[in-house]
């Protein structure tokens, strides 16, 4: 099964890129590919100009501390048997950074940085709430001062009141530390206030890519439009006419030929089944993969 297919993208230093798609769209696999947790079957990832393919062990280790990941599930992502401080210090121990005392100080600083208390280091994960655990996960990822952070659905498992806290925290940290961020989410609205640019994925392929505001203001791809219109809105006046997608999402193991979205697309034509649409420039800054773009957008 191909989870991610023929995806090309670039993230500028210090940029926040959002990746949006439903479950099974390959967005998590994409995140893991970018930091080398999953090896690509074809293609390559260049990090700071350096290829991740066939990298020797020592070089890998050096790169490792520069790229980190924050996971979705605040319960499964922390080792239940080890104290929080020890887990945050892991990166420092593995990469042999600092003395014992310095590590301790760093852990305390990190905990404060993510809005917890330094003496929380002595506690176990189960003593924290979901939001606090997500903060700990962020502190762990930041321990070795990475340049690139993949946040894989970091707020999906949290209550809405806590979601906003964590979003604000990530946004603040990114600006303060100059992090490059890949923010993966199934919810376009979550991405909106954190990311400069956004990629919309469907069944392993990029459907649309562009500056976040542009994608929100004038979504071009039929899938992006359906996604935006389907999100329930609080304010009735903002509610747009809902574009109901026909049928069920196809299995990622057997994606449709041609355009992968065509089976549910209200605008699909016979030729959509034959040609895989390229990502083409649309307006000045967005790229969209749709054969009928000129007619429907």
């Amino acid at each position: 099964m191909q989870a991610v297919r023929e995806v090309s993208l670039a993230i500028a230093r210090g940029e926040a890129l959002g990746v949006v798609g439903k479950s099974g769209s390959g967005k998590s696999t994409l995140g893991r590919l970018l930091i080398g947790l999953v090896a690509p079957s074809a293609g390559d990832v260049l990090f700071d100009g350096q290829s991740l393919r066939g990298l020797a062990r020592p070089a890998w280790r050096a790169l490792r501390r520069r790229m980190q990941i924050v996971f979705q599930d605040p319960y499964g992502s922390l080792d239940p048997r080890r104290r929080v401080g020890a887990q945050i210090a892991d990166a420092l121990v593995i990469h042999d950074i600092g003395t014992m005392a310095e590590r301790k100080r760093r852990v305390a600083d990190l905990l404060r940085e993510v809005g917890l208390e330094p003496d929380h280091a002595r506690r176990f994960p189960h003593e924290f709430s979901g939001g606090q655990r997500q903060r700990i996960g962020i502190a762990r990822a930041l321990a070795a001062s990475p340049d690139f952070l993949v946040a894989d659905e970091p707020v999906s498992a949290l209550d809405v009141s806590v979601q906003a806290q964590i979003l604000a925290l990530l946004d603040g940290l990114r600006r303060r530390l100059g992090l490059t961020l890949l923010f993966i989410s199934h919810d376009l609205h979550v991405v909106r206030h954190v990311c400069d640019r956004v990629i919309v994925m469907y069944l392993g392929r990029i459907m649309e890519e562009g500056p976040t505001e542009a994608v929100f203001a004038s979504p071009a791809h039929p899938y992006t439009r359906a996604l935006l219109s389907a999100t329930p809105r609080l304010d009735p006046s903002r509610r747009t006419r809902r574009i109901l997608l026909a049928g069920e999402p196809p299995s990622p193991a057997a994606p449709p030929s041609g355009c992968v979205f065509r089976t549910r697309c209200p605008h699909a034509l016979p030729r959509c089944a034959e040609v895989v649409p390229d990502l083409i420039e649309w307006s000045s800054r967005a790229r969209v993969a749709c054969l009928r773009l000129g007619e429907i957008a």
Partner: protein
Amino acid sequence: MRKVAVPAALVAAVILVALAAPVLDLPDPVQQDIARRLAGPSADSPLGRDEFGRDVLSRLIWGARASLTVAFASAGIACVVGALLGLVGGWFRGLGELLALRSMDVVLCFPPILLALLVVTLLGPGSSTLILVLAILFLPGFVRVTYAEVLSARSHDYVEAVRALGAGPLRILLVTVLPNVAGPILVQLSLAVAAAVVLESGLSFLGLGVVPPEPSWGLMIRGARSTMAQAPLLLLWPCVALTFTILAMNLLCDALRDWVDPRTASAVRLRAVDRVLPGLVPRRRNDALLEVEGLTVEIDTPSGAIRPVQDVSFSVRAGETVAIVGESGSGKSLTAAAVMGLLPPAARIQAGAAYLDGTDLLRLDESTLRRLRGSALAMVFQDPMSSLNPVHRTGDQVAEVILAHRRLPRAVVRREVIDLFRRVGIADPELRADAFPHEMSGGMRQRVMIAMAIANNPRLLIADEPTTALDVTVQAQILDLLAGLRRQTGMALVLITHNLGVVAEIADRVVVMYAGQVVEQGETKAVFARPMHPYTRALLAAVPEGDEKPVGIPGTVPPPHAMPPGCRFAPRCPHAEEPCRTAPPVLRALDGRVVRCIRAEALLEQSASA
């Protein structure tokens, strides 16, 4: 810690006594005294003498050395080697997996006695041979247990996280994986030690283990058997020693397992449900279909009883959609479970009533309630995969629900199932009715669940987070389906959700819960446009939508055992004043709504003037 101390002391006592055998002033355990053959207890031999006139107490203590050495050594060797093989097999897969697991399968193919005979023939009987045989016999168990645990541990994000940090396989295995798989291995160890003592006895009994006249518990049982009729007590002593040792080992390993797991809170104490509720005369309600009054759910915990749902009241009219919203821990799901009579065993209803058409659901006996569930009262859960039986066709599962409440011929049921599938928007209903759950997508499975729920035309449908597990485009379809069904059938819908957008879309009225209490209740439009309770307001501000940045609520929901004395939201409330922190506010009517806040009017004025 205290829990480990007692069993540890017991095991230590057994080991110490065995170790101390040479310094204890015991008679020689192999010294025979035929004259005092089978003598009863006396001053110099408190447990009597055996069939060769040897001192039983002395043999028991010296025998413990042989038995325990064999048991601990063999179980220990099997544990260390097995855990290593399991770790390697589970982590590296491929060749390591093949070697570690297949070799164990080969061992498992040998009958244990055959294996023992083989090794004894090759090496001759004796303690060291016995240790080897037993270690080989126990090895597959440890490999299998460790392997399975490693497989499940490696799928956890925290293992992935240390990998992302750049840890090598050795560090991951020893620091991260091993502590997390230690529990089951420890249990296996206790079982192995216990089994080894028994097997040592058995094999020695067959003459394959410890060589006489050297004492062991197994040999003692073997010897005592021949004189069972004359001196039955001789059989008792080694058996008592054996039982005591095994019991102590089991206790120790259980305690160790709990101890290495920092999460283990002592289990919730189960209590006989004392459901003698204060007898209220059931009242006849004319407007409300469901009327929940003062519902309080209590759960006993080691640190005292907690009330995750307290004094919750709301009503649902026929054909109405009422949403219950709140963060996790607000008690919304437990409220629904209480109404359905599906509370977890540790929870009980402490007070309150839930009238469905005037009948108090909370005081019905289980069989009456079962008749109601699935007919007048139905429920849809969050996770359609785990709510459907994976080995039955979906159509049959829906048919079962129909047949549970109505006696109909098969063909009629089949027609009805297909009609239901069509009503919930499943394409090709004839085909889909024969499909298994795994052949359907998440959205389709949720449709099947809804078909089951509406199969017997319920008056009330409770949906607990019905769309949380689905992606937004499918969520929109399911919400439209529920709204449509409600219009067609006139059933009432109680929707439990944390998604305020969903509430705004389909609910007529909304009940906002916080920390087990209702804080605000009213028409959805009015509540969302002009929230009266600061919590409702904060919740709405936290939703990411529109141009404003979402604002989080500082702090977290207080745990049920440490509720603040005053208003439960006060510690997180930007508008809290001194009176809020001292006395709990009561729920009161205000402007056609109910709200639990003493400052509601002041805040409304404030926001109106702002």
